[in-house]
């Protein structure tokens, strides 16, 4: 473990952490909290879709499992928020394992894997929308009771720091994977599955670990969402929007790279806000920009923002170890 690989992570986190000290704009805080939640979901996607190369179109499945596990445990059983959080992580990992066990064992790759993740997310959306346990179409509303023990905060700044702490843990995990044997196995599976198998990599087990970890991380983002808004319904938890966000951010930031999801999310949402401020509040205008950026990245800059940095400022890129 080379410690200087972690320096960029610490610097970026520190830079984001001082924002509440120099600003008091709630609009800015809300923007950052939402971006950090999406970053965490995207970090989960990046381990499976970026590092291991298994493109998922249905990470809403894990996000929703996280949302509903946390919300239902608190709502129905009065479980402590932190306990619910850890159980939601387990539920996310379990959902990942089950999905992976079913689809990877059946040999699904590429488009087929993308389709089945989408199908599972949609199935859960319909179930959550119809079941009484999940509050049906009306959703679940949690009680407002601020306090660290309840994972709720009165000040926006405190919640921002909590979300940032989660993202920091996500960054450290991603960085640790990048420098590990497990990470090398993931890359081998992404680059050439058959060759990896021929070299003795247990492909199924590596993929299962990746999807379980990915599921747990994205579920953590779901818990953050619930604790922030204290509300969840099926179209938020299992909605297509979060599947798209979780996939876009790493692609735009730099697919498979540690800082990719964070940079991607802030780039996209920064552009989105900028567009809204120029074009007015036309619905959907920010997503149109996202779509153009996605197509542009795929066509001209497959390494995303960090890839561009590598190409045009190689010395800086090497220094921050992207």
């Amino acid at each position, binding site marked *: 473990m080379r410690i200087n690989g972690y320096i960029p992570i610490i610097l970026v986190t520190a830079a984001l952490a001082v924002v509440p000290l120099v600003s008091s704009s709630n609009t800015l805080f809300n923007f950052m909290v939402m971006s950090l939640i999406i970053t965490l979901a995207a970090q989960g996607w990046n381990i499976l879709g970026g590092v291991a190369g298994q493109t998922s179109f249905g990470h809403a499945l894990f996000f929703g499992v996280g949302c509903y596990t946390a919300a239902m445990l608190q709502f129905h059983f009065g479980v402590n928020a932190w306990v619910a959080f850890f159980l939601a992580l387990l539920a996310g990992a379990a959902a990942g394992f089950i999905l992976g066990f079913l689809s990877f064992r059946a040999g699904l790759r590429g488009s087929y894997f993308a389709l089945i993740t989408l199908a599972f997310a949609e*199935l859960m959306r319909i179930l959550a929308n119809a079941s009484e346990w999940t509050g049906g179409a009306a959703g679940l509303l949690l009680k407002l009771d601020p306090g660290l023990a309840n994972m709720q905060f009165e000040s926006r700044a405190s919640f921002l720091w909590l979300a940032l702490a989660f993202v920091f843990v996500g960054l450290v995990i991603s960085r640790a994977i990048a420098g590990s044997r497990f990470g090398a196995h993931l890359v081998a599976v992404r680059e050439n599955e058959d060759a990896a198998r021929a070299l003795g990599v247990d492909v199924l087990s590596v993929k299962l670990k990746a999807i379980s970890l990915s599921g747990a991380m994205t579920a953590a983002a779901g818990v953050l969402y619930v604790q922030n808004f204290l509300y969840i319904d099926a179209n938020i938890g299992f909605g297509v929007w979060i599947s798209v966000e979780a996939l876009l951010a790493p692609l735009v930031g730099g697919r498979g790279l540690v800082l990719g999801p964070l940079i991607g999310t802030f780039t996209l949402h920064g552009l989105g806000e900028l567009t809204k401020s120029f074009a007015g509040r036309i619905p959907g205008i920010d997503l149109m920009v996202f779509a153009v950026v996605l197509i542009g990245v795929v066509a001209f800059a497959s390494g995303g923002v960090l890839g561009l940095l590598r190409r045009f400022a190689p010395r800086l890129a090497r220094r921050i170890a992207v």
Partner: protein
Amino acid sequence: MYSPTILIEAMINGLLTGAIYALIALGLTLVYGVLHIINFAHGAILASAMFAVWGLNVLAGIDPYLSILVVTPIFFGLGYGVQRLVIGPAAKGDDGNILLITLGISIFIENALLAGFGSDTRSISSDFSFSVIEAGPFLISSPRLVGFAGSLVVTALLWFIMSRTDAGKAIRAVAKEKLGASLMGIDVGHVYALTFGLGCAALAVAAGLLMPTFYVNPRVGGAFVNIAFTIVVLGGMGSIPGAMIGGLLIGLVESLSGLLLGESLGQIGIFVIFILVLLLKPTGLFGAKA
């Protein structure tokens, strides 16, 4: 339990709707069979075709069935252009890229429609929308019957194009062996665009057949595209008869599970089939190989 009349009527309605689903799936399976890509923008293109039909009706008073004659060539051209100018150059031959680009196109179209028309749901209603034909004890909706017939005609037409014309021969050649076809002097880029255009044209026809009984809003494509994916996977990716039979089957399943499980849970039957087919027999009923 339900009386046989209700069950049979639900089955007839399911088959009638299924034929339109099949038409939507036809474009998807055609594009998959030739370009080997899953076109995620399929639903969004359908939604824009439905808006076009709705717009022609509201602005110019053109009957939705008549507007098929206008909208179809336009969407053929648009599809040709999008493949030639956007998807082809941007994808650089990588399947993963195509998946992401069509996703991007889908997000773009959906939100452009949202920006242009708002999220309101719109529909065209005329006396014909509600007219029914009595067949013995059953009431059958006339516009759905027209939709059924229209779908069969388009499927037959598409099958004719694919098997009896030079263009169809070129498409089949490219689908089988891209490199070989290009060495024989076939312009692969042109054939790709032609196929994509045909897929979009099928959607335009489907839009015209749907509008008399269905509504349109910017997100309407999502509902259809999930069904279309299921049909394509069930029938075998790339198979035209597979799409037709898969479509009728899915229409039947949707109608019956809607009757038995209720409106909100009715769609579950479709997704369960989708997941089971993907896991157990990803080649589908008529597919050659995955």
